[in-house]
């Protein structure tokens, strides 16, 4: 038997991507998880095992912040699932209607918020909702609903929901586009077969189209989950690193940033920051696993 020769070109083709990906993404990821097991004592790094996680989950000061951020993060995610994705599906359903005029125009316009940066979105909404400028109250006044107005971003009980809705406003284009693509791929024969059985209009959507686009809704849900659980930018831009008022808009991303870099009088702590990153990693991993093994494999895929 001859010795297999090394095919150098394969190595040359693969090396740059594998090296950059490993060095800048995978290695730091595991290194961060490792750093979570250390702590700084008298300017030296010492191994403390799971001590940081114990502090994070059970120490009164830390755990209060952590569970607050986690709870807020779930609420943030829930609003996206309940508002963003249904609106996205509804818009896609309308847009995919055959012979709807100006569909491309609507589609492009509705997608514009998605391309804007969090800085623009955060500040723009902050200005519009600001009682000083008064655009929101005077518009509500015009329809006789002025009593509804409150400085939403400044009130503990409304601020998180308001920011979640701003984020929904920004990202509704993504579920819209993906569902739109899925709806377009449904063959005309299936819809016509339904029509022959008298299934048209709305009932055609519920009974024929919706079951066929369920896999896309699954993908959107997991994308929303991952995106929400490493969100940071919008909260930071609108409310600052302290995620005010009184931490009511704090989510895991802002909590990690604050812990890592420090704020006001508290010094930054990379090890506790890593521990929070570890918790985020675990949550995202659990979510992705639930999706891959619990949802995706059980979902019926129809051969189209």
């Amino acid at each position, binding site marked *: 038997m001859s010795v297999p020769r090394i*095919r150098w*070109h*394969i190595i*040359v*083709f*693969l090396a*740059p*991507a*594998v090296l*950059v*990906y490993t*060095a*800048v*993404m995978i*290695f*730091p*990821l595991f*290194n*961060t998880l490792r750093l979570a097991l250390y702590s700084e004592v008298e300017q030296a790094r010492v191994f403390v095992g799971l001590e940081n996680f114990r502090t994070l989950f059970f120490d009164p000061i830390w755990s209060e912040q952590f569970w607050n951020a986690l709870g807020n993060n779930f609420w943030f995610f829930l609003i996206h699932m309940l508002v963003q994705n249904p609106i996205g599906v509804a*818009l896609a359903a*309308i*847009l995919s*209607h055959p012979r*709807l005029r100006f569909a*491309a125009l*609507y589609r*492009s*316009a*509705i*997608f*514009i*918020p998605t*391309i*804007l*940066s*969090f*800085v*623009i979105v955060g*500040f*723009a909404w902050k*200005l*519009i909702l600001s009682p000083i*400028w008064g*655009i929101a109250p*005077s518009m509500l006044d015009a329809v006789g609903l002025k009593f509804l107005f409150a400085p939403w971003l400044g009130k503990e009980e409304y601020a998180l929901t308001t920011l979640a809705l701003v984020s929904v*406003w920004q990202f509704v284009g993504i579920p819209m*586009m*993906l569902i739109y*693509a899925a709806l377009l*791929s449904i063959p005309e024969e299936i819809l016509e077969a339904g029509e022959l059985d008298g299934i*048209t*209009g709305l009932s055609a959507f519920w009974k024929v189209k919706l079951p066929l686009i369920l896999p896309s809704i699954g993908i959107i849900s997991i994308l929303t989950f991952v995106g929400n659980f*490493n969100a940071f*930018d919008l909260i930071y*831009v609108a409310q600052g690193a302290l995620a005010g008022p009184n931490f009511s808009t704090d989510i895991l991303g802002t909590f990690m940033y604050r812990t*890592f*870099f420090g704020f006001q009088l508290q010094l930054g702590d*990379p090890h506790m920051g890593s521990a929070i990153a570890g918790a985020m*990693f675990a949550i*995202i991993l659990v979510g992705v696993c639930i999706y891959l093994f619990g949802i995706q494999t059980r979902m019926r895929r129809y051969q189209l």
Partner: protein
Amino acid sequence: MHRARKNPFNTMGMHGALILYTLIALFPVFVILVNSFKARKAIFREPLALPDSESFSLIGYQTVMRQGDFFLYFQNSMIVTVASLFFILLFGAMAAYALAEYRFKGNLLLGLYLALGIMIPIRIGTVAILEMMVATGLVNTLWALILVYTAQGLPLAVFILSEFMRQVSDDLKNAGRVDGLSEYTIFFRLVLPLVRPAMATVAVFNMIPIWNDLWFPLILAPSEETKTLTLGSQVFIGQFVTDWNAVLSALSMAILPVLILYVIFSRQLIRGITSGAVK
């Protein structure tokens, strides 16, 4: 043919819903752009009115030009985005070709390894990334950002591009081999031009998140010389928060480049999403 699909009442309802949502989507952008051209008094007196000869003012833009280095920020954003896209496409296409074309031990495993990063956000590793950048002296350089964005973009790029590489005909490549072309020449001369549409899709997908990112510029390159447009406008607005003219003008100047890019690439972007590249 289909009575239910032609109902004029339905059509009006559909247009009504779409117009309403389009207004909701565009209203904030419109308010910001319009008011950036008005004098301070007019901004507050009639925020929804278009600027006229009396209320027109460029004072906000003048402040922005004087106080902020927006051209430098813009240039930094441009360098980071273009360089990251270049490396994502080059390295991603090379790896995708190797995975799609050659059979070798560990092919599947390597593919899965590279796909891991599609679902796991790179931000989780921030603490160690910063440590590494400090250790290598790359902190506060644009290279730090370019490396991070390249690593972040590669998984999806390899995934999408290898799907397309599999569709390139074997006859073409084998004809090249018979003619004595090297594997490198076959890849760069024969295969790459054929997957150009897929490369464009990958580029457009990556462009917007890179341009808009705030987290990594804030952590890895916050110095004045390396600020990107996103970070620069965030810091500028934070400092000038009571100067409404300046804030509105800074926001408009941040909106403009993305809007122009969108107008140029929206067709590509929408075709990319709807052709099922992300399934």
